[in-house]
C-alpha cells in the first residue's frame, strides 16, 4: 500500500462515521455507535411511579442502576410489545448510562457525509432538535437520532435541570 493510499483511508475514516441501526416498528433509526456501550435483552425492570409512561423504570446493570426508556412509547408507536426480540441499547451520554428499548437492532452502517441529509422540520412527536439528519442508503432511509440531545432534552425528564441550569 502506498503512503498516499493509507492517508486517503485515514481521511475517509475521519469523514464517515459509524452508526448502529435499530428499528422501531417499521421505521429504521440510527445512533452514533460511539455512544453505545452495549446491547442487552429487556428484563427485570423495576417500575418507577409518577413518571412519564415512556420511562419504564430502572434496572441493574452489573451493580449500576440504569433508567430504561422505551423509545417506542416516546415516539408514540402503535404497537408496543415486549418479547424475546425486544432489545435494550445501553448508551453512555453526558456521563450517564441510559438504556433505550427498541424493537430490534439490525446492523452497523458507515455513512459518509454526503449520505447524510439535513433533517426536515417534523411534526410534534419527533422534534428536529434531537435529530442529526437523515441517512440515505440506496433504498433505505435512516433517521439519525442525536441521542445525547434526545436524552438530555427537558421533555425526557431524565435529567434534573433545576440546579444545573441555574
Amino acid at each position, binding site marked *: 500500500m502506498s503512503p498516499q493510499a493509507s492517508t486517503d483511508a485515514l481521511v475517509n475514516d475521519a469523514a464517515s462515521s459509524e452508526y448502529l441501526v435499530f428499528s422501531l416498528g417499521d421505521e429504521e433509526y440510527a445512533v452514533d455507535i460511539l455512544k453505545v456501550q452495549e446491547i442487552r435483552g429487556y428484563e*427485570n425492570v*423495576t*417500575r*418507577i*411511579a*409518577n*413518571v412519564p409512561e415512556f420511562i419504564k*423504570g*430502572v*434496572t*441493574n446493570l*452489573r*451493580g*449500576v*442502576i*440504569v*433508567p430504561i426508556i422505551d423509545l417506542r412509547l416516546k415516539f408514540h408507536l402503535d404497537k408496543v410489545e415486549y418479547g424475546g426480540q425486544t432489545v435494550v441499547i445501553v448508551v453512555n451520554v453526558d456521563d*450517564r*448510562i*441510559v438504556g433505550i428499548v427498541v424493537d430490534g437492532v439490525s446492523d452497523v452502517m458507515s455513512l459518509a457525509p454526503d449520505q447524510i441529509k439535513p433533517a426536515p422540520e417534523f411534526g410534534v412527536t419527533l422534534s428536529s432538535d434531537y435529530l442529526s439528519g437523515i441517512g440515505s442508503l440506496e433504498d433505505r432511509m435512516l433517521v439519525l437520532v442525536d441521542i445525547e440531545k434526545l436524552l438530555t432534552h427537558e421533555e425526557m*425528564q*431524565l*435529567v*434534573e435541570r433545576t440546579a444545573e441550569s441555574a
Partner: protein
Amino acid sequence: MDISDFYDTFFEEAEELLADMERLLLDLDVDDPDVEELNAIFRAAHSIKGGAGTFGFTVLQETTHLLENLLDHTRRGELSLRRDIVDTFLETKDMLHDQLDAYRNGGEPDAEAFERISRVLQQMALDELGQQQALTQAPPVDKAPAPAPAVSTPVQSELEPAMQAVEEGKGQRLSITLTGVSDKDRALLVEELEHFGTMVSQSGDTERYQVTLDSSESKDDIEVVLCFIIEPEQLSIEVAAAPAVAASATAETPVAEAPAESASGPAEASTVPTAEAVSDPDSAAPKAESAPARPAGKAGGKAAKGSESSTIRVPVDKVDQIINLVGELIITQSMLEQTASDLDIVSHGPLVNGMNLLQRNARDLQEAVMSIRMMPMDYVFSRFPRLVRDLAAKLGKDVELVTEGKSTELDKSLIERIIDPLTHLVRNSLDHGLEPREKREAAGKPTTGRLTLSAQHQGGNILIEVIDDGAGLNRDKILAKARSSGIAVTDTMSDDDVWQLIFAPGFSTAEQVSDVSGRGVGMDVVKRNIQEMGGHVEILSKTGQGTTTRIVLPLTLAILDGMSIRCGRETFLLPLNAVLESLQPQPEDIYSMAGDDQLLKVRDEYLPIIALHHALDVTDAKTELTEAIAVIVQGEGRRYALLVDDLVGQQQVVVKNLETNYRKVPGISAATILGDGSVALILDIADLHRLDRRKSQQRHEAKRQHLHEVSLV
C-alpha cells in the same frame, strides 16, 4: 518523569503539616510552652520550607523561612512567647495556606500579602530578639529544657580542644549520631563527613554510630547533605560544646548522666544551664541549641515513623470502587445462596458448607471494607479550636471549648459534609448563645462561657451536639419574629415546635446583624444540608441555661438496614430505623377527616395514613384498609401509618444512588439490588407523605372540576 508529578504529594503533605502546626499553636500554653510542641511546630515549618525549596515555590519557601527562624528562637527559649506572637504565627500559617492554594491552582501567591507578612515577621524578629539579647544576662534561661544526655560522655577527653574550638568561634566540634544506618550507608556518610572537616573519632554499630567532627560548616548544612542519604530522624547533630557542661553536670547531679532523655527532670535541667549562663554567657547559646535538639529529634522521629508506616494515602474513588465491588459480591453471594437453599443438604453437603463459609467471609469483608471509609470526628472537631478562639476574641467573649467523643467514627462523605453546618451552629452559639461577660456575671454564671462539641453513637446513628451554656432561646422573641414574618404561630405551641421555627428560611432573632451570624440565612440551610445527609436536627433549650443543638445522622450512607415490604407485586424497602411497629388496622380505629384524609388511631395518637399503592400507583394492591398492614413509620420527626400489603423481612442492603444515571424520584430516597438481581426502591417517608398529599390534592381538584362541569350541564 516530571518533578511536577510530585506536586500533589507535596501539597497534601504541606496541608497536613499546616494543620498540625495550627493545632499545636493552639494547644500551646503561652506561659509555659512545651518544648516538644515547639519542636514539632518548628519541624513542620522546616519540612514545608524544604519541600517548597525543592519545587521552586519561592514565596512559600521564604515565608516559611522567616517563620522557621522565629520558631527556632522560640524553641531555644530565646524568644518568649506571648499571645500576640502566637497570633502572628497563626496568621502566618493562614498566609502559608493561601500561598499553598495559589501554587496548587497553578498561580503565584499574592505578592503584597507576602511582603506584609515578611515585614511583620522581620519586625518581630528585630523587636523581640533585640530585646531578648539584653535580657540574657539577667534572668537564667529558665526554659532551657532537657539536659544534654549520654551523647556528651564519650568525648570527655576532648574537652579542651572542644572548648577552644567554640571560643575561637570558627570551627566547632560536632557530635553526630546516626541511628539505624546500615554499614553501606554509613561508609558513604563517613566519607561525606570527611569533606566537612577533620574526623576526630568514630565508633559504634548499626544501631547507633557516633562521629565526632571538627568542622567550620554549620550544623544545618551538614544535616541537609546527610539527609540525601538517610532520613532526618536517623540523624542527630550536636555542637559538642557540651563537655564542660557534662563535666559539671556529672559533678553536681549524677542523674544527668543517665540517658533518661527528656524525662530526666526539669530540676537538673535548669540548674545546669543556669550555672553556665551566669558563668559563661557566650557558651550558653550553643548549649541551648544542642540541648533541646536531640531528644526532640528522636521522639519526633519515632512518632513520624510510626504514623508513616501505619497509614497509606489512597484516593477515595478507589475505596468507593472496592465498596461497590464488595456490594456486588454480596449480591452474587445471596443469589447463590438462594439457589443452594433449594438443594438437598444430604447430597450437596460440601456445597452447602461452602456456601455458609462464603457468606461469613463475604460479610466480614464487607464490614472491613466499610470501616475504611470511617473517619474519627476529630477530623471535624480539630478545626474548631481556631475558629472559636478567633471568634471569641472578635466578640470579646471568654469561651472555653470542650470536645467529647473525638474518636467517634463516621463515614467520610458525611464527615466532609457535616463541617459547614457544624461551623454554622458553632458560630451561632458563640454569637447569640453565649452572653457577654457582664451579662454572665449578672446572671451568676462563670464569666467564661462553655461550648461543648460532642459526638456519640446511638444505635445506627451518630449524635453530634453543639452545647452552649448561654442564655437559651427566647420563646417570646421567636414567636414575635415569626408573626412579623407571616408564619402562622400560636402562643400555646410546644417549645419544640417553637424552636423548629428558627429553621424557617430568612429567620433571625438577632437584633444586630454581625458579620459572624444573624443574617437569617443559615439555619434553614443547616437543616436542609442535614436532611440531605439523611439526618435531622433537634433543639433543646432552657432559658438561662443554654441551648443544645443535636444533629442525628446515619453512620453511613452506603449500607442500610432495611425492612422489605410488598405492595402488589412490587417490593420496596423501608429504612429500618424509620420503622417503629406494624399492626393490622381495625375498622374502628380508622377515622376520616375532611372527606379524603384518613387517620389511624394508635394508642391515643392519630396518625395520617399513607396508602403506598395510592402514592406510588401500584396496581393489584390490597386497597381495603383493614386487609392491609399498617407500618408505623417516622420521618423528619413525624409519624405516619404506611399501608402495605405484606412485610417480607429484614435485610442489609447496599444503597445505590438513583441520581447517578437518573434523577431524584418523589417519595424515593435511593435504590438497591436484591438477591435476585432486581432493583428495589428505598422509600423516603417524609417525601412519600408530601407526594401523597399532592396526589390527594390533584384528585380533589379533578373531582371539583368534574362537579363543576356536571353542575354546568
